[in-house]
């Protein structure tokens, strides 16, 4: 891990996970962003530092430059019907998967 001085988002920022589906492009990919948060809006809880990009590492590439990694918190009832009103789901998401909400 290296410090993520260049992190684009800060704790409290609203962010949207890109609604992208690289696994449908016909080439082999390694993705660490779960399906159920793609296209969803959450809040940055914490900046975790920068890590070599696992989407490259999986194919023997160096994964550089390191990707800032975030804790993004989603409201449970916004993701699924039911559930406790204040319940949340926190997911580790790399910066390349995040954008400012429209």
């Amino acid at each position, binding site marked *: *891990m290296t410090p993520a001085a260049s992190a684009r988002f800060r704790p409290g920022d609203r962010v949207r996970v890109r609604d992208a589906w690289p696994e449908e492009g016909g080439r082999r990919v390694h993705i*660490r*962003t*779960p399906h*159920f948060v793609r296209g969803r809006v959450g809040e940055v809880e914490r900046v*975790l*530092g920068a*890590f070599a990009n*696992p989407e490259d590492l999986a194919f023997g590439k160096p994964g550089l430059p390191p990707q800032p*990694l975030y804790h993004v*918190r989603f409201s*449970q009832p916004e*993701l*699924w019907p*039911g*559930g*406790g009103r*204040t*319940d*949340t*789901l*926190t*997911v*580790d*998401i*790399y910066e390349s998967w995040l954008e400012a909400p429209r």
Partner: protein
Amino acid sequence: MAGHHHDHIHAGDPHAPVAEHGPSPEYLLLERAVRELLVAKGVFAADDMRRQIDLTDSRNPAMGAKLVARAWTDPAFRKKLLAEPKAAAGEMGIDVSNTPELIVLENTPTRHHLVVCTLCSCYPKAILGIPPAWYKSAAYRARAVKDPRGVLAEFGTALPPEIELRVVDSTADLRYLVLPRRPAGTDGLDEAALAALVTRDSMIGVSHPLSPA
């Protein structure tokens, strides 16, 4: 009774063959081929691999329980465990070199944490050892995010509705350890007695620590 020996499974038969539910033969062959190539190419030696397996097998939930019990009894250590988990674990003699970054999630009177890895089976092995089979099951991985309170109920864990439940999906480069709340009625207990109350499941978040006898 004709054909008795083949009619049913002898559940209590001490000589019943041990059922194997390991990986498929193809994966076993693949693992062996890759391992032998890595050794032949000098990436690591066979002995390195044996030592790593030894180290992995030596880790177990009692190590995590020691951290939790120390955090319950020593406020300075609790602070350190939350701020610098790997440094705190190292202080307690747990070898965390070459292991992923660790985050400790503290349960409070108003907040409970539950850990899952929906994409695979990421788990704080350095602190808790090998994960239980259910942690790697598709059912747990899917349902812990979608119906976490239902999952807790099936583990026999009551969580009042006013307590916020935070599910943490361990998808990337970090591993998570839940710091459960100290049970009531444990004021007189020493650190070793407290550690005995800290179960593996309470450090994953599917249950609470045991109550004192």
